[in-house]
């Protein structure tokens, strides 16, 4: 019933807002840039980094005195709801930071402006200056709906001191080594483990399956989740739980388990954990490192990050594009990396920021970035990934038969894709 009310409130609210939005639009359409008035554009940004965005916006406004930027920082957890409301009411932001995994859904809903005509027009948007994988998250068919902003990839974090003791002076390079290192680390004693496998991480198995040569979806778009390549990846991951190399229900925070005596000395995550480890466990400095993922047939990781997009119903697309152009410039991207430590999508920025090409951590990340691909950009992907997590949970916790479970998951995925 609560949920019902939420849905209803959403509908009722959106109706009201669309009324307001229309009113505002009418009022503000008078101050077009040609009339010399100030144009106000609203930028929706998400996550912790968004708090640093006003600094950049200030600099932009100095260069463009006729544009005023209003930055709204949304937490990732309720950004999706806010975006739904904006789409329903057809009013809200001008520029939206769009997580790469949400691109498909909002492009499909017609919420994002087609930027294809502008790509050739502005040199800042030229696709070849961004990582290829990042550009891939902006393309749907032959149209482009966003400009890469910052990028992310998953790689291996490990306690170099503990791995050295276990006979691994360097990070594991292959699946077999990873398996072996995890086992040796778990054998240190009761309550010690090797590798953390997050049961709620949607991308993990798909990433491992790709490393094992699975294409996830066939040429005809049919899912391949019950094929041997995929099954072996699931078996590989389940193996960590079976012999106690990976903890189930540890109840410890990643950094907590990583620091100190290193209850779980290896985990796979994205660049945001660097800051987390440095701030929460500063005394660990020098005892941990990152490395590209161990390989099976390849060591392909999952590419994520955010793009900047223009809201379809924006009243000021030109000004919105001016802001995105500013954000894509090498200098801004460097400044942004300095402020937030997020990884620039602009390749040239990597060359010029000393931290990025001197720090061995970032070198490892860069190597991984070149072997990263985004997950299939499909509207239904979220649902498929969530359905998979339920299957994976049954496999790990309830010891369900892997092939039977994957056959059922594959059939379900096929149904979801057919919708």
């Amino acid at each position, binding site marked *: *019933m*609560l*949920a*019902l*009310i*939420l*849905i*209803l*409130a959403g*509908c*009722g609210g959106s109706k009201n807002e669309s009324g307001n939005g229309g009113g505002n639009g009418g009022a503000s359409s008078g101050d077009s840039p040609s009339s010399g008035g100030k144009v106000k554009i609203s930028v929706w940004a998400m996550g912790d980094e968004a708090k640093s965005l006003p600094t950049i916006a200030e600099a932009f406004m100095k260069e463009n005195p006729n544009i005023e930027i209003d930055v709204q920082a949304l937490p990732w957890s309720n950004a*999706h*709801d806010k975006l*739904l409301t904006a*789409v*329903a009411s*057809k009013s809200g932001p001008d520029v939206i930071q769009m997580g790469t995994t949400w691109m498909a*859904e*909002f492009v*499909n*809903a*017609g*919420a994002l402006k087609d930027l294809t005509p502008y790509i050739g027009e502005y040199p800042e948007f030229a696709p070849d200056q961004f990582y290829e994988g990042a550009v891939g998250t902006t393309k749907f068919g032959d149209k482009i709906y966003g400009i890469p902003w910052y990028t992310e990839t998953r790689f291996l974090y490990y306690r170099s001191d503990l791995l050295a003791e276990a006979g691994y002076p360097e990070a594991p390079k292959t699946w077999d080594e990873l398996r072996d290192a995890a086992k040796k680390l778990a054998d240190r004693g009761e309550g010690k483990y090797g590798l953390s496998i997050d049961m709620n991480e949607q991308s993990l198995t798909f990433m491992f399956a790709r490393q094992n040569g699975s294409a996830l979806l066939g040429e005809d778009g049919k899912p391949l989740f019950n094929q041997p390549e995929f099954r072996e990846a699931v078996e590989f991951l389940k193996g960590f739980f079976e012999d106690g190399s990976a903890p*189930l*229900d*540890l*109840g*410890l925070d990643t950094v907590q388990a990583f620091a100190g005596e290193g209850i779980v000395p290896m985990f796979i995550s994205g660049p945001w954990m660097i800051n987390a480890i440095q701030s929460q466990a500063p005394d660990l400095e020098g005892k941990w490192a990152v490395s590209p993922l161990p390989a099976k047939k390849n060591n392909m990781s999952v590419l994520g990050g955010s793009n900047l997009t223009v809201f*379809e119903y924006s009243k000021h697309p030109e000004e919105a594009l001016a802001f995105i152009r500013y954000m894509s410039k090498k200098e801004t991207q460097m400044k942004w990396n300095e402020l937030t430590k997020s990884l620039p999508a602009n390749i040239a920025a990597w060359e010029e920021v000393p931290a990025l090409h001197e720090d061995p951590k970032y070198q490892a990340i860069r190597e991984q970035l070149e072997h990263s691909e985004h997950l299939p950009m499909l509207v239904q992907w*979220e*649902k498929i990934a*969530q359905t998979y997590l*339920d299957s994976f*949970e*049954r496999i790990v*916790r*309830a010891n369900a038969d892997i092939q039977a479970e994957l056959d059922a998951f594959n059939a379900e995925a096929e149904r979801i894709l057919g919708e």
Partner: protein
Amino acid sequence: MKIFTPRSAPYFFIAPALILLFLFSLLPIVIALVISFTDMDLAGLADYSNIRFVGLDNYADILRDASFVKAIGNTLFYVVFGVPFVILFSLSVALLIHFGKSRVFEIFRAAFYMPSVTNVVAVAVVWSYLYNPSLGLFNTMLNAVGLPDVRWLQDPVIAKISLIILALWRAIGLNMLIFLAAIKGIPKSYYEAAQLDGAGSWKQIRYITVPLLRFAIFFVTVTTLIGWLQFFEEPFVMTDGGPLEGTMSVALFVYKNGFQFSEFGYAAAGSFILFFAIIVLTLLQFKLRRHED
């Protein structure tokens, strides 16, 4: 012509309430009912021409959805174990506080009410630590007396019970206040008469207090039952429906489908099934009560 005649005046007085009720309760319910017969998703939200009517398909699909069936089972589990315990505990606490002679009971009244006014997110943070498998207070205490760990939130059945304990703790306060108010309304003369006849305190409670609380008990039963059928906050903040969908309630299922997967039509169908279940059960209760009287 005068608008404010004695005849029309009452309508003006109730108009604000009626308009609000219509705009924010009745109209949305009708809209949700319409949505439940469509395949509305995000694309439909952006452009209404993408919406197709699918008749009863959503209802047929959702009743075949194993997750939804599981959510119904879980919700019944919550109701069957939760509701009687809420009534039993809040009534007992109310009686103890009312008949307790010491000043200490005043403090208890505030202490028991505190959980009801505490933000559920703050509660969830604290209780996640209590239930934490490695660092939790509960397991530490069990270990201290030589008992093994309990998998509070990791076992599908125990997790349901853990959430019921949490919800119980949150629900006692408000219902206790309702019972206390009702107990205070019982005239002293009844007790005096009983004492003259030689009834002890247990007999006084058994034959005077509890029977005279019949209406309060009925009220608390109805509201608690409705509340527990919509069990949402506890699994939402503590377990997100896991493990193995063991704590998924119908309301949480609706929320996840609506807001995580943007399948508004499907979610609306789920919420209507829940809506009717609540209405039917509530009417049943009223019927039983009339029968009793």
